[in-house]
């Protein structure tokens, strides 16, 4: 009955105390007496060092998850933007009226089901587009290709293959660019970045597991007397392993919460400092729900990984004792 007000009071006094109370919560019995102390004692220097290492690993893993979320958002945004439009290009052909070809191609595009707004670039507009690269003087004498931008209506799936074939057969010098090459390249870039992120996550997880493994061995060496007494009073290997796993779960959870918490604070700060201004090329630079949920998942994964690794290390060590 007194536990909830006590927690509230702890929260008011200090968030750190609240965390400590929450982590100890299961150890307070219904009769108000402290539940039995953990079999494997905590609070050692090695334990603190392990928590710091796990916090760093969790931070790196959370930043990777946040980065992956940014990549995922950016590539899906690029994909959506690029895939919403097609471009018709009319190459100037000697002896042919290019303006007539543009008009014919525009008419064909407008008549195609699923194509929305069609905007043929005038000769001046086309020259303005090319001027930064070729200069105004050169453009007056050069035959320049003409472009027609055609937007795809929302939710529509026009038959682009049919449109392309109709354009090439009916309008001389016309071709359709559905941006497929761009989309494929963006997808490849996105897949590569996701692959790199997954590799970094795997490395971080492996490094965490190895840290816990060595820390478990150290803890077992430091608590050899405890293990011996436990065996002599009839403890099974599973009980000993669970005792260590419980202690290392606590280390993992504390380290994970610290590292993940710092990463989340940075995500929030980045979104706040970015002011919500979307970059024209990259899209919105803010970690989404996936990033936050992923960070929480990383914290849970690291805590369970710490427990599982220490349990396996203890069981394997105890088996070798026989």
């Amino acid at each position: 009955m007194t536990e909830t007000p006590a927690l509230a009071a702890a929260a008011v006094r200090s968030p750190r105390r609240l965390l400590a109370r929450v982590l100890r919560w299961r150890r307070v019995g219904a009769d108000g007496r402290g539940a039995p102390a953990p079999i494997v004692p905590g609070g050692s220097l090695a334990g603190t060092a392990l928590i710091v290492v796990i916090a760093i690993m969790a931070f790196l893993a959370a930043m990777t998850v946040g980065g992956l979320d940014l990549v995922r958002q950016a590539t899906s945004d690029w994909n959506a933007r690029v895939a919403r439009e097609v471009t018709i290009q009319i190459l100037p052909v000697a002896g042919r009226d290019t303006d007539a070809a543009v008009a014919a191609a525009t008419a064909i595009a407008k008549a195609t089901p699923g194509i929305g707004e069609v905007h043929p670039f005038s000769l001046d507009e086309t020259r303005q587009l090319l001027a930064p690269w070729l200069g105004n003087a050169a453009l007056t004498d050069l035959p320049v290709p003409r472009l027609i931008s055609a937007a795809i209506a929302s939710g529509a799936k026009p038959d682009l293959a049919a449109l392309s074939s109709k354009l090439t057969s009916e309008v001389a010098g016309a071709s359709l660019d559905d941006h497929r090459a761009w989309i494929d390249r963006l997808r490849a870039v996105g897949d590569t970045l996701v692959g790199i992120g997954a590799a970094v996550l795997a490395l971080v997880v492996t490094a965490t597991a190895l840290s816990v493994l060595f820390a478990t061995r150290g803890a077992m060496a430091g608590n050899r007397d405890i293990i011996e007494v436990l065996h002599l009073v009839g403890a099974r290997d599973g009980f000993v392993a669970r005792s260590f796993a419980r202690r290392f779960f606590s280390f993992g959870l504390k380290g994970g919460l610290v590292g993940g918490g710092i990463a989340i604070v940075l995500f929030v700060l980045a979104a706040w400092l970015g002011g919500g201004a979307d970059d024209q090329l990259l899209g919105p630079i803010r970690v989404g729900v996936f990033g936050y949920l992923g960070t929480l998942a990383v914290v849970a994964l690291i805590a369970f990984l710490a427990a599982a690794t220490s349990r396996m290390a203890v069981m394997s060590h105890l088996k070798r004792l026989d």
Partner: protein
Amino acid sequence: MVRFENVGLRYGIGPEVLKDLSFRIEPNSFQFLTGPSGAGKTSLLRMLHLALRPTRGLISLFGRDTAHVSRRELPGIRRRIGIVFQDFRLLDHLTTFENVALPLRVQGKSERSYRAEVVELLSWVGLGDRIDAHPRVLSGGEKQRAAIARALIGRPEMLLADEPTGNVDPHLARRLLRLFVELHKSGTAVLIATHDIALMDLYDARRLVLSDGRLHVYD
């Protein structure tokens, strides 16, 4: 309950420290194990508790040949034996209550199920007011009684005690002996390793004497 036949023990490639031990411990029996320091009393107790395997010979515990007891079966057998170590082996980070309750805790029992029993036993050994104390603040005698209580809490069929009166004054030693005798009368086999002749003279019981690695039994 316990049967040793031609049991020998050597450490590494050294000489045999225990030779041709043959004896029995019957249920509900009481015996002292004695001998000079270094005679091998502790080694014999460790073999009885399956913490040490003999180099040769047969040890049968509760009808099982210990040579064929697997690692998985060890805890089950150890739970039938209570042991009091010469150096107490209390865990410093646990309270007296938690130390005494350890054999029940490792069996997966909830604290609620054994709290009353542990408190009663602690009162019985005179530690009723030291329940929440840690071993660091207990006197030698208090640690000894806590170690004895830990050995008894699981209601063992056999109690092994290694120099249980080595760290206490003669008055407390007599009280502890009475405690062991009470336990014996309640049906537990008791083996007390001691080199305290005065203590053995207080109670007429079988004596197992270790000398030069050999055992002499005086019924």
